[in-house]
Structure formats: structure tokens, C-alpha cells
């Protein structure tokens, strides 16, 4: 599988997407990540392993703790065409096009009045 294929495969699971959304707010340990889910820590660890093998997250060594965090390159590769952030900006600027069009029509009316 190409890196992109394995990223898509990793993202096909809703629990893994929820884990990524949580990690987007900052690094977290397996215990932190498992808390909101009704599944066991080993199951969470398995999902994290899939995400790490897909290159989407990485493990930091901090003493005895092993917090997981997003790999910024991976996030950037994905958000470029998927993120709500981008779609919201596109929608907003499409509305601005319409407002600017109306502003220019009003100006033309004022000029000819």
C-alpha cells in the first residue's frame, strides 16, 4: 500500500478518526485517550498502532510515559482537501463574490443616477 492508501485505510474507522480529532487538541497518553471510549485500553492501543503505522501519529518518549501526538506533515496532507476549515472558507468567499457583485451594481446605479 502507498502511504496515502494506508492513511485512508487507517481513517476508515470512526474510532480512529475520533482519536485523531482528540490528538489535534494536543498530545495524550493511551489512558487519556481511552477514557471517553467504551472500549478497552488494548483495543485503543491497537487503533493507535494502526494510526502510527500509517504515519499519522507518533509516540514521544517522556520518562516512563509514552504520549501520542499527531505528525504535522500527516495532518497537512489530509486537511488540504478534506477539512471543514477549507470548505468553510470556500463557502464564505463565494458569498463575498455575491456581495461584491451587488456593491459594484449599486455603484454603477449611483454613477448613472
Amino acid at each position, binding site marked *: 500500500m502507498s502511504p496515502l492508501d494506508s492513511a485512508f485505510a487507517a*481513517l*476508515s474507522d470512526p474510532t480512529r*478518526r*475520533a482519536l*485523531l*480529532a482528540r490528538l*489535534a*487538541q*494536543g498530545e495524550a497518553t493511551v489512558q487519556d485517550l481511552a477514557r471517553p471510549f467504551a472500549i478497552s485500553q488494548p483495543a485503543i492501543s491497537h487503533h493507535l498502532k494502526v494510526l502510527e503505522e500509517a504515519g499519522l501519529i507518533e509516540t514521544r518518549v517522556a520518562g516512563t510515559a509514552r504520549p501520542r501526538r*499527531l505528525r*504535522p506533515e500527516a*495532518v*497537512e496532507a*489530509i*486537511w*488540504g*482537501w*478534506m*477539512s*471543514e*476549515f*477549507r*470548505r*468553510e*472558507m*470556500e*463557502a*464564505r*468567499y463565494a*458569498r*463575498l*463574490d*455575491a*456581495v*461584491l*457583485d451587488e*456593491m*459594484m451594481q449599486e455603484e454603477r446605479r449611483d454613477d448613472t443616477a
Partner: protein
Amino acid sequence: MTRLELKTEGEAGVIVTRRFAAPPAQVYRAHVEPALLQRWCTGPDGWTMPVCISEPHPGGRIRFEWSDGTAGFFLTGEYLEIDPGRRIVHVERMHLPDPTPDNRVTTTFTPDGTGTLLRLVMQLPNAEARAAMLATGMDEGMEASYARLEAQLEDAA
């Protein structure tokens, strides 16, 4: 000609560019006049901006409040530098309700034929704050993307 371009820069920057058919004076006005902002900066589908404070001078306040009739969220900020028709520098943060890290935004309006090239340079305090901003709504965004992908695959089948 109007396609949005989005790219990251360095550790914590984001650059957005977009062309508009109107000249810089109009695009600038639409970015600072409350009555105009309320017509396009309305948020997700079904939301409006009932409160819009914009005081375009150095130190001037920014406050946008969005509502869908029941729920709401808001943004606050301050203008730092203003060069009317050409350039705006401001800082902003979302309140969800906890404030997000400050986003320093430099907006430039450059003549482009009879239209305008708009360029936003956003500077977040660190890589983590940028990832959080870009990942906003990521989960729902992905669901929507998968739904679209499935529809396309069904059409192709």
C-alpha cells in the same frame, strides 16, 4: 480564477490566497464594514452573524457573534495596523467557549487586472495550535468526504 489556495508555511503559518472580480477598495470595505461583513461572514449553513463590531483603526475592537437560533459562538480580536484599501493586520481568537490561541492575521489586497488578489497570512503561536485550527470539524468533514466519495463510486458503478 477564483479558486482558493491554502498552504502551510514554516512551523505555525497558514497562507490563503483567493482572487476576486471587484477592485481592492471594495474587497477591503467588505472586510471592515459591519453591514457588509454580516452578509458574507455568516458561518456554517443556516447560521447568521447577529452581532458584528469592527473598528478599523489601530487598537480598534473586533467582535463577531454567530447564532443558529439556539446555539452560538463568537470571535474577538483587535486591529493592529490599518492601511485602507491595501492591508490589515489584526489578531483574533475563537471562543468555543474557551478561547483558542491567538491567530495573527495579515490581510493584503493587491490589484490584479480589474480585480483583486487577496492574501491572508495567519500566524499561530505554535505547530500544535495550527494543527488544532486546521483540524476543526475534521471528523464531520471526513464523514462528508466519505459520503461524497461513496456517491461518486456508486455513480461510476
